[in-house]
Structures are given as structure tokens and as C-alpha cells.
């Protein structure tokens, strides 16, 4: 793993309001989740050294932090790609061959579900439903929806992100 620069994490710790701390300077247990959210927003994921820093400086046992992080789907322990690709596997997408779209994404990116492409551009996940059944089959990249997909569409859409056509 490449070295993680902890300056930003230290900054975040330094900015914590006194009201979120106990008298002995340790961070209140209730404040752990907002703190983890701040760290993740900064790094895109939760780097282990940053969690170890919180544990050490904030007086929260690493085991508790790890328990919380692995409990919530929103937290990531591995770096994610620059773009999040989510493929829907809801009922409507399923009957319209959504599974084939998912495997096309897998093929194009060369990664499985939950994986991140070697170039660091994409992380691929499937989700229970994107709530846009009228677009089935559908995938979502970052904040954009791509609907009524054919297997062949996947590559050209992803290529546009690769080439920097979409930021």
C-alpha cells in the first residue's frame, strides 16, 4: 500500500469541537460516525493508518472503530475508483436482462463486483434497485443514469469516462 498522507486526517481531528470531547480529551463515542464520514469524504475511503490515528489520538479502541466501519455499508476500507459504477439488479432490470449488463461491465473493466480497476478509474458494484425501473436495464455512474441499455452500449459509455470525456 502506498504511504497515506495523514495531514488531512490530523486536520480533521484538530477541528473537532470541544463539545464532542470528554474531559480527558478523548473523543465522545457518539461522534465516531460523523468523524469517519469526514475522513472518508477527504480520502474517498477510510485508510487504515487514518483509523489507527483516530484510535491513538482520540482514545477510541481500534476494535470499536473497525466494528462500526464494517457494520455500515457506507464505509469503505479499500480505495475506490474515481468513478462509481452501480448496476441495478432490481426486478425490472432482472427481467430485461440486467445480469448481462452487469457481466458486460465486468468484462469491460476486467474486475468483479466490488472491485476497483487497475487504473484506479472505476469501482464496480451492483445494487438492489436504483429506483428507475422505467429505464431498465440501468446502470449509474457517479450521479448519472444510463438506461435502456444494450450490452454493446456499456463499453462506449465507459470509454468516454476513460478518455476523460466525462469528469
Amino acid at each position, binding site marked *: 500500500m502506498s504511504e497515506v498522507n495523514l495531514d488531512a486526517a490530523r486536520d480533521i481531528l484538530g477541528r473537532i469541537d470541544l463539545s464532542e470531547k470528554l474531559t480527558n480529551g478523548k473523543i465522545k463515542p457518539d461522534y465516531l460516525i460523523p468523524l469517519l464520514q469526514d475522513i472518508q469524504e477527504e480520502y474517498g475511503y477510510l485508510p487504515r493508518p487514518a483509523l489507527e490515528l483516530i484510535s491513538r489520538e482520540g482514545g477510541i*479502541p*481500534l*476494535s*470499536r472503530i*473497525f*466494528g462500526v466501519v464494517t*457494520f455500515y455499508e457506507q464505509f469503505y476500507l479499500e480505495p475506490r475508483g474515481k468513478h462509481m459504477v452501480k448496476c441495478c439488479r432490481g426486478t425490472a432490470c432482472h427481467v430485461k436482462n440486467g445480469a448481462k449488463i452487469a457481466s458486460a461491465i465486468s468484462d469491460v473493466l476486467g474486475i468483479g463486483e466490488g472491485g476497483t480497476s487497475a487504473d484506479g478509474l472505476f469501482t464496480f458494484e451492483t445494487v438492489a434497485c436504483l429506483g428507475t425501473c422505467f429505464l431498465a436495464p440501468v446502470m449509474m455512474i457517479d450521479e448519472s443514469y444510463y438506461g435502456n441499455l444494450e450490452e454493446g452500449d456499456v463499453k462506449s459509455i465507459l470509454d468516454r469516462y476513460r478518455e476523460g470525456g466525462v469528469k
Partner: protein
Amino acid sequence: MNSVNIRINGKDIICPEGANVMHVAIENGFDIPNLCYDQRLSPTGACRLCIVEMEGRPGVHTSCTMKAGEGLSIVTESDKLSALRKSTLELIFSEHKATCTSCDREGACSLQDYAYRYGAAEDRYPSIVKGGHSDNYTEGGIAIGYDVEKCIRCMRCVKICEEVQGAEAITLDGRSGNVVVNTPFSMLLTDSSCEMCGQCVDTCPTGALYAKAAKGKGRVRTMKKVRTTCLYCGVGCQLDLNIGADGKLVKVTSEPGVIPNDGNTCVKGRFGFDFIHRDERLTMPLIREGDAFREASWDEALDLVATRFSGIKEKNGSEALAGLTSAKSGNEDNYIMQKFVRTQFGNNNIDHCARLCHASTVAGLARAFGSGAMTNSIDEFSDTPLIFVIGSNTTENHPVMGIKIRKAVAEGKTKLLVADPRKISLTDIAHMHLQQKPGSDVALINAMMYTIIDEKLHDRDFIKSRTEDYERMEAAVMKCPPEFAEKVSGVPAEDIRAAARLYAAAESASIVYSMGITQHTTGTDNVLSLANMAMLTGNVGKPFAGVNPLRGQNNVQGACDMGGLPDVYPGYQKVHLPEAKAKFEKAWGVPLSDKPGLTVNEIMHGVGSGKIKGLYVFGENPVLSDPDTNEVVKSLKKADFLVVQDIFLTETAELADVVLPARSFAERDGTFTNTERRVQMYREAVAAPGESKPDWEIITGVANRMGADWNYNSASEIMDEIAAVTPIYGGISYERITDVGLQWPCPDKEHKGTAVLHQGKFSRGLGKFHPVDYLPQQELPDEDYPLILTTGRMLQHWHTGTMTRKSEVLHGIVPEGHIQISPADAGRLGIVSEDMVKVSTRRGEIRIAADVTDRMKEGVVFLTFHFKESPANALTIAALDPIAKIPEFKACAVKVEKY
């Protein structure tokens, strides 16, 4: 607390309001099924088996999360409950692979029992067992194994680690169907905050967590459990030795509810007893021939010992003989040993390693209060409003006591004040940490008292009615304002004031101390200062208060009680007092000497100077444990005749003329007296190796060959004799202490023992204040030796390592010693962690790896004395406290260089 009436299955029960209903039910003999319940933990309500029906409230409710209120009425068994429990069990089996045929727990497994009771099928639901989980935190690790296929996610392991042990090493990883128990990032336990206490293994209701060494060594139901008292520290934990069909120790467990440890043990108690079966155990008497030993019969060895000792006595006089007794051995052995020295050697040259640990406590507290023992009881530490820990690394050296303190602080019941030259584990949770320089304790405590008096926080009523000599003490204290103490100790004056206020303001406050206070040339002064402060604030003679020295060895309290000291008979009856002498002359039937004998260090010097020709060392290893060991070895080599009685061929035994093989605590019956003065049983659990014998039997053999006529048939008989001549043990007998020990003073057979000393009246009448002035340590740092060396112990090892370094787990976790050094000192010396360094003093040098840690303050380094490869006591100074004759292990000048 108010009592309430509740009803369980139609039976009326009175219990405290708010009591846990499940607990009350179990106490009253009701069998409510449960898997996630452990009385030491907060209720979890995870397994759903303890459901009951409640009158007036429809549905079913978990009894483990229910609190007793007036009129509560529950039913614990019904068709509805049975059906629900059956389904619940079947769901549990979907995540528990029932491999009972190969499981150690088979036949002693609650899950199995309940499945049978409620007719649950293992395979009703598809299995969601997480077989082959890729990141098992115990794989490739030491001591503890986790089989995820048997885990039912009850959380007992996670909770005991968090709530009881306070180690917080493990957690639930993931959620819903994907949950496993794990360390953060699946790190090995030895890399995590785990303390290897094995509490998780002990509380696990299935075979999911297990001791690796016990796997396949026998099913739990086939094992014999023998209740005993732990051999390591002075807490005196009650353990169950689990003995397999082959008669060997398989594992150690403990039962919730036992006194004083409530089922908890530390890593040594759990995993530190494999030494008893080691091949290196002594099995036959050994007699020196030239540079080697040869095996001999008991008769030959004992005849030789008796003849040589008698010969020396005849030729050189009684004063040429001395004995060292053993704080690791039982009360009965110590009683017999001192009786042997006093009656057969004819002098009082008997001492033991208490000289090296708490001699200053015995001297100091006896002067101040009239009794040199811990004033209060271990149990009180769960509810003490303020605990002042000074010079005690409690979590490592008295671990189960440490977790009690840690838990009380975590629950908000206790404010914790710590004074220690190092950042120890307790400082992490302390409300304040005073990081004083070694040797500056008197200044620190005097300055705290200065503040208390100055701000009128002292208890004038208590001082007036219960104490004497206050004025002289006050005069001494008023010479030591916090600003002066700051200069000496390095602790900011304001912090000293704040700490003083914290201590004085507490409704009751307990002082806990250990070797950091006692092992100084000012050891007695340090103890007197603490006694002064406790009396100043009225914190003696009541529960949740007092001055509490934590005794190091399992039976150092007992060895002192038994008269293993040069100036007192059993029960601290002074040898120089004619009435005491007369009493023991009558009891033992021989004339006795009224001249106090020599202390450990004086004995060693005596051997070195040729004054003492014959020495009987029993269960001690002075070659590693005494200060300035190069001198000790030189001395011992000069002895005309050295007898060593031990369970292993120790470094000291290697120098002996005759070595006598003793039995360990697991191979015989006897009693230890723990730090809270509780006399407790240890019991024979395994067969003794070879021809080894109990210590008292060996010593009796020597005594009878020197002219005595002792006929002891058992340890119990010896205890009866002890009770007859020792008033504080007057009411002790094996019959009375079978289940729970008794705390002395226990003067007669009806007496229930004494939890808190000095209630209403001090043992000496009035508590006596002593004026104490600050004196610097003997050897101050200078240009040549610029750092202060302080020494001590660590969690995983015990003293000279005779036992712990022969334990696979303990030695596996910490195979070698390190010197702890601050980042500032290390930086200046160009040292990084794991660098080999040379550590030297004016007395010797050692080579050891460095551990650069911010737990150390600049200018101070720390060594343990467990490792013969890097013996700390080759460096320490044999400078003695003038009263207690305790050496200054905690401070000498030292030089550290990169190798």
C-alpha cells in the same frame, strides 16, 4: 437498595429492586436456557432462548434484559415457550456447524443440551456457516483458536474483552448474516491490544473459541476439575485445573462468582502452568561431585545435609548457618522452614524475598498503623470513589486487580489518579497522571499533604480522635511546598495541587501501591508518607479507603505471617520479647535465640565474608532476583555448604552442593495467603514428578536428622499447629477454608475474618504520624552514568522466569527482554527500536534490544528482571533502606550506548 417481591413459576421470591431477573432465577434454582448470558456482562439479549411469559404483558420477553420490580410474575416453561425455543435453536444451528462428534465440548455444551431438551433439529434451515473464512484472526497465532463454523454470534467474547478485561481487542466484523468475530483488520492477537487472558475462550458457550494447546486433549466432560489458588501474583485468583484422562493438566478455567477473581484470570493464570509437566523438573535429589551433580537417594541426600549443617553448627557455632524461605511456597512450608531454622540452626537467620519487595511496607505500616498488611479488600475496588495508584503497574503485575480498577473507571464509579514515572496502561484511563522522577515520591506526597493542610481539606476530627504526633508531621510537610516538589519530581506544582484536591475531596479514597514505592533506600519513608496522607484525610479504617500495598508473590503475605522474617515469630510476635520467646520455647520444646537474625542482603554478605558457612535456600533464585547479582554469585560460591530446594535446577541451584526436588503447587495440598490477607487452599491435581516431595516433608526430614522429633502427616495438621501459636490465624483450619478463604485477623473458630483493618481502632491503638523529609536516591545520575534506571516486571513473565519462560504461550509472546527508553534519549543516542544496546552501571553491564517508547519520560529507562540473558540485577545497586533493608531496585544511575 429496596427489596421487591417477584414470582417465578408460582414461587414467591424476594430480591433487590432492579436485579437482573435471569440472575435471580438462576440463584433460586430455576433453569432458564441461555447462551449469551454471563453474569459478569451487561445483558445482550442476543440468543433469545431466555424468553419467558410475563403476567399482564402479552408476548414473550427475554429474562436476561428484565429488571425485577414489585409484583413481577413470570413463567419460564410452557408449550409456547418450548416451541419458540425449538425454532430459535434451529435457526442458531443454521450458523453453527454441529460437528459434535469431534468437538471437545461434546457432552458439556449448552447448545447440545438445549437442542436435546427442546427436540431441535440441526438441519431444519439451510446452513449459512461461514466456512473457510479467509481472514481468521487466530490463524498462525498463539494460544487461542477461533472456529467460525461453531460461532453463534452471542457476543460474549467481544463483551468480556470490552467490559471486563478492558482490552478491546476483538469486535464483530460485518453485519447480518456476514458477521464474524475478528480483530481490527484481522490482525494477529499478538499484534492487537489483546492481553491473552483467554477470558473469551472461557466464556464462549460453544467450542468456537478454544485454547489451542487443549484441542483434542480430552473432552470437557471427561476432565477432572481441581479448584486451586493461582501460583503467580498476590491477588490469589481461584482457578480450576482441568486434568485429562492421562492425569496431565489440559487447561485452566475459572468460575464466575469465585472470590476474589469472579472467574477472571490473566494470561499467566490461564496459560502459564505448562511448566509443571516439563522434563526439566527435578525428580531426584542431586549431590555435587566436582563440577557435576549425581542423583542420590533421599536418605543419602538428607543425611548429608543434616550432617554438614550439624558439623558447621558444632565447629563454627550456630551463627554460621542461615536459611532463606519462600514466598512462592505454602504457609505450612514456610512455618516449618522458620521453625527449622529457629529450632535446629538455633538462630533467627531466616528471611526471604519479601525483603526485596515489601519489607518497607511491613516496617512502615506497622509503625504507622500497627499492622503491615493491606488494610482493605480486593472486592471494594469495584466501588471505590477515588483510587490513587502510585508505583504500581497494576494491570501488568496484579492483572485481575487491574481489570477491576479499569472496569470501575469505565463504569464511571471511580476517579483514578496515577503517579508513576512511566505511562503505564492505567494512565491511559486515569483522570490525572503525575509522572514523577523515580525516587521523588516523598517530595510529591509531602507536597500533596502541604496542599491539603494549606487549603484546610484535612479531616480534623479523625486526626484528633484516631491519631497521634500530628504536629511533628505537619512541621515536616510544611517544608515541602508544591513548588519545591516540582523541582525534585518534575511534576508541575499545579498538577500536584489538583491531585491533592482530588484525593482529599473524595468521599473515600484508597491508596494502591507496590514496588515503585517500596524498592527505594527511602522505601520506609515512602510508605510512612502514604500512611500520613491517608490518616490526614481520614481514609483509613473504613471500606473503600485505606492504604493498600499489593503484595507481589502469591504467598509473600503468608511467608511473612508465618515468621519467615529475622525479627518475628509467626503472627509478627517479636523474637526479642521475652513473653513471645517463652511462648514458642514452650510450643516447640527447645530454647530459642532472642537476637533478631540477618536479612537477605546481610545473609548474602555474610556468606561472601565467610561468616556464614552453611545456607539453606528454599524456593528462591537470588542469583537473578537480588541486587548486584555479580556479587551474589561470588558470595554463594564461597559458601562451605549450599543446599537449594526447588522445582527446577535454577541459576542458584546450579551453585549448590545438594539440590532437593520439591513438588509444585499442583502436586500437593496447602494454603497461600493473598494480598488481602485471605488464606486460601491449593490442592493436589496431578501426580508429582519422580521422587519429589512437599517442601514441609523435606525440611522435616532434615530437622529430624538433626535431632528433632516432628511427626507431621499432612499440611492440614501443620495448619492446626499454626493456628494454635498464631493469634491472627487462630480461627483458620482447612475445614473452614474449603470453599472460600478467610481473611486474617481471624482469632477464633467462630470469627468470620476481617475485610477492613483498623475500624474504630488501629492495631497499635492510635494511628501514628511520622515526620518524613525528602532524601534523594542513593546514586544520582552524573556525567558518566546520565540516566536513571528503574526496574520491574511485565504481564507475561514472572520474576526470574523459572516458570514462565518454560511456558510455551508466555515465552512465545515475549521471548526476550527489551530496555524501554524515551524517544528523546533514544534520538540523542542514535538508537531506534530493536537496536542492540549496551547498558552499564558501576556494577555491571548487559546487552539488550531497545524499545523506544513514549511511555518513558526523558532521562529514565526501564528494564524487567525476567531474562537471564540480560539480567537487570547485574546493574542494580545494593544500597539499602536503613530501616527495612530493602534494596533500591527502582533507581540507579545508568549509561546506555548503541552496540
